[in-house]
């Protein structure tokens, strides 16, 4: 099923979503960039779906918040801080690479034993995705089949057709969300225009990772001098970990709440580029060299994920390339190891 939503109707559609008791997250302009933020009824006019890439990965941030309290311990009792079913969340305007990254996170967090926090947040989430209508020189989703369009994993999906959006239904949940919100049915011209848009965006994507036989090449390059060379430039800041939509590692911390006498046990994002990541008792560190940490990051995405979860762990969103202060580029690392680039 497909419908057409005029662009000037988008605020009404956003209001309609909020009226269904969803907390709505959508991209808005902030200075030169776009960020996802919680939108209330008065802010629906701010929603702007004309963006290529946000700095932070929106679905990871919603499903595994940067800091999330797991347990509250007080007077010998432990309370599980699981989000209840009333915390319904809708995300509007999320791109295919990010939806596919969420599908990868599901492989980690829904693998047994399931992570009940992720599961609860995922169940509460409705996804209104947005096919890409543009791309920049850092996009490389086509290498992994994770964009610029999306065939599944969404409840509704929009495509920008200039003066209007094509709205396609991907699930019963999506259909129920539309409910009584009137939109005219899409015509075959609308669908053809969508295909044309996707074709045009694919043509804009110039960056590629050749994934053919990649695992064998990466394993063969574990002792390549490239890792030491990259370590000379890398600052070990972990920005690549934080902005990566598939990086899933976390730390766990206990914090006493001084006024209530309870203890909060929370998890916070962690990253393999950070020095403390592989530290053990007595100052031992199994990846104390930056070269080993860079090798871990790149190999995890381009090699180990395949053994662990049956897919490569990169969706080609380009965030790590964009945020790296040392201009380290995972696609050129792979190209060099393949002998495709000097």
């Amino acid at each position, binding site marked *: 099923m497909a419908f057409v939503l005029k662009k000037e109707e988008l605020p009404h559609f956003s209001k309609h979503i909020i009226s269904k008791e969803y907390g709505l997250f959508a991209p808005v302009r902030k200075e030169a960039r776009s960020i996802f933020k919680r939108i209330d009824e008065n802010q629906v006019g701010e929603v702007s779906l004309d963006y290529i890439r946000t700095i932070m990965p929106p679905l990871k941030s919603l499903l595994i918040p940067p800091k999330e309290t797991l347990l509250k311990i007080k007077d*010998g009792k432990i309370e599980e801080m699981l989000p209840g079913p009333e915390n319904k969340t809708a995300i509007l305007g999320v791109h295919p690479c990010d939806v596919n990254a969420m599908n990868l996170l599901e492989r980690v967090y829904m*693998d*047994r034993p399931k992570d009940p926090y992720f599961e609860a947040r995922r169940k509460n989430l409705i996804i209104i995705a947005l096919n890409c209508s543009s791309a920049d020189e850092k996009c490389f989703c086509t290498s992994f089949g994770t964009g610029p369009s999306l065939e599944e994993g969404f409840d509704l999906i929009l495509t920008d057709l200039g003066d209007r959006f094509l709205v396609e239904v991907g699930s019963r949940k999506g259909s129920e969300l539309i409910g009584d919100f009137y939109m005219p049915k899409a015509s075959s011209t609308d669908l053809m225009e969508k295909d044309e848009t996707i074709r045009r965006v694919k043509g804009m994507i110039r960056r590629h990772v050749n994934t053919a036989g990649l695992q064998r090449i990466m394993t063969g390059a574990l002792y390549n001098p490239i890792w030491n060379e990259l370590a000379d430039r890398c600052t070990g800041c972990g920005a690549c970990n934080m902005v990566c939509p598939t990086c899933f590692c976390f730390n766990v911390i206990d914090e006493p709440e001084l006024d209530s006498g309870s203890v909060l046990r929370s998890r916070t994002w*962690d990253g393999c580029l950070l020095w403390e990541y592989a530290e053990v008792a*007595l100052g031992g560190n*199994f990846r104390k060299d930056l070269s080993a940490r860079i090798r871990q990051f790149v*190999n995890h995405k381009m090699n180990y994920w395949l053994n662990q979860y049956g897919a490569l762990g990169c969706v080609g969103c380009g965030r790590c390339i964009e945020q790296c202060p040392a201009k380290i580029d995972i696609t050129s690392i792979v190209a060099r190891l393949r002998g495709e680039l000097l």
Partner: protein
Amino acid sequence: MSNESENPYLPAFAKVVEIRDENSTTKTFKLRMLNNKALRFRPGQFDIISYFGVGESAFSISSSPEEKDVFENTIRKVGRVTTALFNVKPGDILGVRGPYGKPWPLERVMGSDLIIIAGGMGLAPLRPVIHYIAKHRDLYGSVDILYGARTPGDMIFTYEFDSWRNIPNTRLYLTVDYVPPNTKWEYDVGVVTELLKYVKPRMRDTNVFVCGPEVMMKFTAQLLLRMGFYPSEIFLSLERRMKCGIGKCGHCQIGYKYVCKDGPVFNLEEIGLLPDVIE
């Protein structure tokens, strides 16, 4: 996890029933789960202990699997959580999750001879093996236990050494790196691998269990390979940073393996080619 619907991050409560001093920096905590829940574990598995307000840490379970209602963790004071645990007194309540991880392959090596090589705290996950063998002595061939520590005062479970020597067809060899002045020591001095000179293994009919500092395991594995052991006959228990124990937090990864769920006990064949391990 036994129950699919349970929150895997939720600790159960256990009461500290006894605390033994092993040496000046190490204590063994005997725990009993509350609410009649027993911690059913196999030798080589670990648990995660909570000291609420300070945090969680993973520890090898060091007691006999034959003791059903209590279990032990042997803990060295090295960081925040362990320092907090050293303030615990019998009767106090701690949080416990687990058991986690793959145990020593006691079924797979049944009928063969065993060499158990431990360095320092590495004896903790091997003590359950020794107790298991003592209880099921006819299931295994000859057993040699090789144990090394920095000094005699750094050894753990010394009060059990005589009973281990009395297990039929079992020998215990001890060594230390050095003997401080005025310390009585009638055994070897040197690294633990040197104790292998006392062992005449029946090749292809002997398996080796190793646990200790990574550098000790590296040299031990190299020597065993030179002696003619196959990697498939060598098993190592690895230590890595762990925050969850269930393959989510990511910290314990070595290549594509998770130490918490694919290990901590690995066959050398499985990990021999992985990076960041006994390189």
